[in-house]
């Protein structure tokens, strides 16, 4: 595929320039030209009023490793567990995976890796799966890239699934890219939308880029499995059924997973309560407007009252008021809780990209011009030192 501009047709109107997210279109002698840094993202195609921008599809590029797509079937979900606890993202993947599997008329399977995980395997049977592929081995007691990626790749080679979904968690985003390289197939990161294309039956994977200012839909046409990591809290979790269904397929540790080059020493849980922003339905965040680190106690109290977690802007993290694990934004965490309350946060774009997909946003800021109000479902112009205590009082009285 290639994108070029027909110089004869181009009127030099420059409308295409701002459409390019990569600045890859330039005016030369009053004609637009596509530069080398074009990523073929197609963003410019529709904006040209005279249809001078063309896409040439080269002959369908033969994958370097020919892949017989028809041999692959089934939707797989990586059932992430930590210390024997199935992570909530797993149920979201099962819910979404079921829809895809039903559309395709294929099986839904879970892949469970760990040590002493029989109970979790049984639990998965309540979630409308056809099979649970389980590798239960001491080698898999803790997450390590080598063993997890080797197991997943070996299973995929053996059973040839059509689709593999994993959570876009630290674990998922760490080892699944290695699985994709081992299998030499496509991987789409951090998806927020998945559908099956009617005609072709390919998986259409939609994901945010540029911190959510644009979205892209991505497909893997000629390779299998189609692999995606999926953002937490976007998909609806599967409901637990009253009856178990499906079977547990117990498998031995594949040979290639017997070698683990890294050594797990220990795992440290950080002491601050409710740091797990990724899991939180409610987040209360504090910014430099708090004025002093000691006022994070206000944020904590409001979070506690509402049953939420504590977030922070980078300004407060950089000032050492609160640890980095609380930071929301471009260089911190991306969150999408049901409720996000921003207190004393100006709403710089780098902060917004980390939280603007929250369902409901409340902003408390004394500056009515603060950009945070542009995304707030409820804006409160006022001094947080007065507003937060009033909120705590009102909400704890319920």
């Amino acid at each position, binding site marked *: 595929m290639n994108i070029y501009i027909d110089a004869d047709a181009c009127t030099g109107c420059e409308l295409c320039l*701002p459409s*390019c*997210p990569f*600045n890859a279109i330039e005016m030369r002698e009053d004609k637009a030209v596509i530069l080398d*840094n074009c*990523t*073929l*993202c*197609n963003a410019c195609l529709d904006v040209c009023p005279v249809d001078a921008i063309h896409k040439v599809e080269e002959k369908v590029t*033969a994958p*370097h490793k020919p892949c017989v797509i028809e041999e692959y079937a089934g939707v797989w979900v990586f059932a992430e567990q930590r210390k024997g606890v199935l992570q909530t993202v797993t149920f979201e993947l099962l819910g979404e995976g079921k829809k895809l599997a039903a559309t395709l008329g294929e099986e839904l399977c879970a892949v469970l890796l760990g040590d002493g995980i029989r109970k979790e395997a049984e639990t998965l049977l309540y979630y409308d799966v056809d099979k649970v592929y389980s590798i239960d081995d001491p080698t898999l007691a803790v997450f*390590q*890239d080598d063993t997890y990626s080797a197991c997943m790749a070996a299973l995929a080679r053996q059973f040839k699934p059509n689709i593999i979904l994993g959570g876009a968690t630290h*674990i998922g985003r*760490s080892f699944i*890219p*290695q699985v*994709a*390289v081992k299998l*030499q*197939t496509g*991987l789409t990161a*951090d998806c927020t939308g998945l559908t099956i294309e009617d005609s072709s039956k390919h998986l*259409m994977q939609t994901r*945010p*880029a*540029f911190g*959510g200012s*644009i*979205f*892209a*839909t*991505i*497909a*893997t*046409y*000629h*390779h299998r499995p189609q692999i995606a990591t999926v953002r937490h809290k976007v998909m609806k979790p599967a409901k637990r059924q009253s009856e178990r269904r499906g079977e547990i397929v117990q498998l031995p540790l594949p040979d290639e997973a017997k070698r683990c080059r*890294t050594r797990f*020493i220990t*795992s*440290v*849980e950080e002491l601050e309560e409710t740091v*797990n922003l990724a899991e939180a339905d409610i987040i209360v965040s504090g910014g430099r407007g708090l004025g002093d680190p000691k006022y994070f106690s206000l944020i904590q109290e409001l979070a506690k009252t509402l049953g939420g977690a504590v977030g922070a802007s980078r300004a407060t993290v950089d000032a050492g008021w609160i640890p*980095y694990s609380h930071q929301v934004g471009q*260089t911190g965490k991306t969150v999408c809780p*049901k409720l996000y309350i921003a207190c004393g946060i100006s709403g710089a*774009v*780098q902060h917004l*990209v980390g939280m603007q997909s929250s369902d409901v946003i409340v902003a408390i800021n004394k500056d009515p011009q603060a950009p945070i*109000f542009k995304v*707030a*479902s*409820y*804006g409160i112009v006022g001094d947080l030192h007065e*507003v937060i205590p*009033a909120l705590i*009082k*009102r*909400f704890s009285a319920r």
Partner: protein
Amino acid sequence: MKIIVCIKQVPDTTDVKIDPSTNTLIREGVPSIVNPFDMYALEESLRLREKVGGTVTVITMGPPQAKEALREAISLGVDQGILISDRAFAGSDTLATSYALASTIRKIGAYDLIICGKQAIDGDTAQVGPGIAECLQIPFVAFVKKIEEVSDQTMRVERMMETGYDVIELPLPAVITVVKEINEPRLPSLRGQMRAKKYEPTLWTSSDLDVSEERIGLKGSPTQVIKIFTPEIRKAGEHLEGDPEEVADKLFQRFKEAKIIP
């Protein structure tokens, strides 16, 4: 210790805004910057070099103007920069990018540690670091927030997890990706800036690398972008007015109506 840092030039996302009337991206004079996470990778490489000696080589794959990113790295004090640039790489997805960068690293030859940023802020994929490790068949640890110890053969790192961190020991050579918490990047020195001004990075094209044509660029990319669109823009909602008590009460009522709280 021979360290290789992979950096990427990205548009400064602060400036990627959407024009609400036309729903297109406004990109007037958008500057390019070094991917912010890669600044931490650069800083960590310099600190390691200060501690145990060795060299830092910085590589980037991108259009000719990505040279500027390498110059910025030079101004911070790295030893050398290599630009991998060729139209043949255009349209590379993370699989093809990992392959091209891994091939570059193979050509460089001797290396003990490869450091990448956690993710690039344009694509936000975080897949190239682990991809490189897999292509080179060497160990990998993501989201490193601290290097606790390092010797010739091994290092011990802290990997950030959602609720804490794991301590992992890994043999070298290896690939790690780093998060912001790992350090505070330095500013360029005057001498570094002087050197950067005149610095011409080594340029390699696809023919300098031992790459197979089918595995680079669009051909080597299993994923294809089908369309790009702008999300619906969030609209400002309601302003709640009144004294703090009134405001608190209004918010409480809204939450109840919308069933945000039980």
